[in-house]
């Protein structure tokens, strides 16, 4: 942990903002610059910032799931959308789209590319965090002092 008051205070504001930003990146990706990969990197940066200021132990608690679970869920989502297309009788990984008319949110045009992209995002976050956490496990005190 870095004993920097500035960093700690800044992180309290930055971490939620970055996480929100990563979601924003993910969702706008299909039509504007962004996407799951960038979103994942931003989210990973947010978590790494949190690790730096709050320590690995606290981050693990906040994250609730282990990074390798994120890897598994991400891969399952990505592969799952591929298989989903098969169930509809289309070739593997064909994107499926639906139009929803919801009372509050208005018209939504949703595609199976979104869960795929969420899968990509989870894998990216999981990879970055798994690396940081394993480095800390191997050499305790490297991140956390």
């Amino acid at each position, binding site marked *: 942990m870095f004993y920097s008051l500035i960093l700690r205070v800044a992180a309290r504001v930055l971490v939620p903002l970055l996480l929100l930003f990563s979601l924003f*990146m993910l969702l706008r*990706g*299909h*039509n*504007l*610059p*962004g*996407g*799951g*990969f*960038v979103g994942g*990197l*931003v989210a*990973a*940066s947010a978590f*790494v*910032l949190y690790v*730096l200021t709050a320590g690995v132990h606290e981050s693990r608690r906040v994250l609730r799931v282990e*990074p*390798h679970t994120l*890897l598994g869920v*991400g*891969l399952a989502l*990505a*592969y799952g959308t*591929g298989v989903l297309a*098969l169930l509809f009788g289309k*070739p*593997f*990984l064909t*994107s499926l*789209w639906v139009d929803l008319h919801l009372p509050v949110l208005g018209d939504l*045009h949703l*595609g199976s*590319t979104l869960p*795929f*992209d969420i*899968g*990509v995002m989870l*894998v*990216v976050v*999981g*990879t*970055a965090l*798994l*690396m*940081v956490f*394993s*480095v800390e*496990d*191997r*050499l305790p005190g*490297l*991140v956390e002092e």
Partner: protein
Amino acid sequence: MLVAVLSIFVGAALAPLLVRLLGRAAGWVLGLLPLGVFVYFAQTLPQIAHGESLRQTYEWLPLLETPLSFYLDGLSLLFALLVTGIGALIVVYAGGYLAHHHQLGRFYVQLLSFMGAMLGLVVADNVFVFFIFFELTSLTSYLLIGFYHTEEGSRRAARKALIVTGGGGLALLGGLVLLGGVAGTWEFSRMLDLGASVQGHPYYLAIFILVCAGAFTKSAQFPFHFWLPAAMAGPTPVSAYLHSATMVKAGVFLLARLHPVLGGTALWTGTLGLFGGFTMLMSAWLALRYTDLKQILAYTTVMVLGLLTMLLGIGTEAAITAMVTFTVVHALYKGGLFMMAGNIDHGTGTRDLLELGGLWAAMPWTMAGGVATGLSMAGIPPLFGFIGKEVTYEAALHMHTWGLLVLVASVLANVALVGAGLLVGLTPFIGEVKGAFTRDPHEATPSMWVGPLILGIGGLAFGLYPSSIDHTLLQAAQAGILQESHEVHLALWHGITPAFIASLVTFALGGVVYAFWQGLRVSAFMEGVGAVFGWGPGEVFERGLYGGVHLSGAITRRVQNGQFRWYLCATFLSLLVLVGGGMLAGGGGAEFSFSGEIRYYEVALATLILLSIAAAVRTHDRFVAILALSVGGYGVALVYLLFGAPDLAMTQFAVETLTLILLVIVIVHLPGIQGDESIGVRLRDGLVAAGCGALLTTIMSVVIQTSLDLRVSDYLAQKSYTEAEGHNIVNVILVDFRGLDTMGEITVLAIAAIGVYVLMRMPRQKKPSLAAGTSVAASRSDAAETETD
């Protein structure tokens, strides 16, 4: 058929849940799944026996040209029925055998995945679908053999099986690709009548050798036989299944499947006949060297595999009749005998023949199954094994040349088999109770004796009424191998024929072997046979393996000496030599020309990047060096932004930030850069760096001079919204147009992350000479890891 194969895998996924809910009874419930699939295949029998074949194709990714296609003819049906029928019994059996094991759920996952892979293998039509299932059986059997993974012996046996069969699989892949290319189709069903053109092709020899390498390793032919007896280190249900109906039969099945395409040549007959015949003879006698029930059974499996291979090599109508008959005979008795051996082990605490005897009173049900299957193995009438032996002799007698040799070899091998069958099936039960058992002998639970009993009854029923399968299943299977229909007629009694006389000779000699087994086992002759053929090839394999490990260890120590500087130098030097050398060899000189307007902010950006590099090179503080490099990285991201690639720029920004933070975490703990390297080292590094810079500059100037082919970009730009409903072409490419690539990439990413995780968890090697530098080297390589990713 896709549903049938997939249902087994779904069962594998659900197995742990079922075990948690039902406990020991889970085996009975799970057994219903393969039973259901068995029934599904059985009801196609009338159709298949009529000479028809079923073909089903599922296009899952049309552009990949690898449809999930399945083909069911007599041959596939025979094996599918064995895989699922015996599989159902094994699943039930495992529920009893491993009832008290805390990882029964895990075991069922592996066993059912293995079953699904084996079933997929026998019904696959597409070459690649076949190959994937073939490899999947290697992988799942690796897990099954090494199920007792806390024991060194199990791990070693599992590794042996994986390396031998996996290596063979690699050769097979080459053979299949060549075969598909030569035949012009990737479907087995379409290759079947292309035999003549494939055999006349110059690649025939290569295809034949590679396919044989795959089949011989999988089906444990000499000199690759050693992995199979070692594989009995796995739990008994695994041995029973592996030996009787699956895995080892995969190689034989492959040869049978390709018999119409590759078979019939002198090369085919000679190679398969020689290897098969030798394996048969050698392992039959090797079996008699052992006193462990499972060990004896394992070697007799190798013997049968040799026999089947030899019969496929001979390839006449009579030989193929014998081959399909013996496949069923063997599956029935070997599955039952292995389960019986497991029951005896369970009930008495030993599998050693020298300690076993007189179990008839304590284990009546196991005895019923064991004696019936054991006598079938010995080929005693009226069991099905007798018919199997007779038709083998018939096949030898029908040969024009070499018939006598094959007959003598078969008789000699069968003599040993008679001895082994009586030893395994009778000796444990008859006579007096010999030694004191470690456990009080007791009968196994019904789930454990029902399997051997059913298989024993099956052997008896088929022996008494061979007409129940000869005209239907066996005839169809033979037609599948030969691609022409002949009538198959089996009977217990043919009159006094030469084959019958050969059988009588076999019984007489086999009886002698049984009676004098104790003396024979320890005789000098058997010792010699054992030394040369038994563990000889296995020993060579182990030595080769350890030699390889030592060699790669030595190379690793030399190349990966822990100095990050050296790693980078080697990497960039390789790049320089390979790419630069390639460009020079290709004669591609580049002429540096630049046209276009230079804007002021471009100059500013270039200056910033250059300054940051200068700072990184000059500083003696790692922290400053990393920061300076990052400035360069951000500068590059800005370049992307200026030239209209916002997605790329954004990703570069994010990656740069993340790696910067990760590096800072690690690097603040490292000592500063000493800066006391010799002038030679600096000169070397400088030269390599400058060379790489020059190389990249050259490449870039070549690239900008090449006129861009915009067809693909235009296509994507046009179709992005109309076909993939997105305006951001970059993202549409990532998640839609080239989604498969992305899927591969994130899979690689996940594997890399798991690699780092495992690397970080490995115990640190203790090397006294390097003790002082270890921690520095370790953290340096940490930095390398985070940086490269």
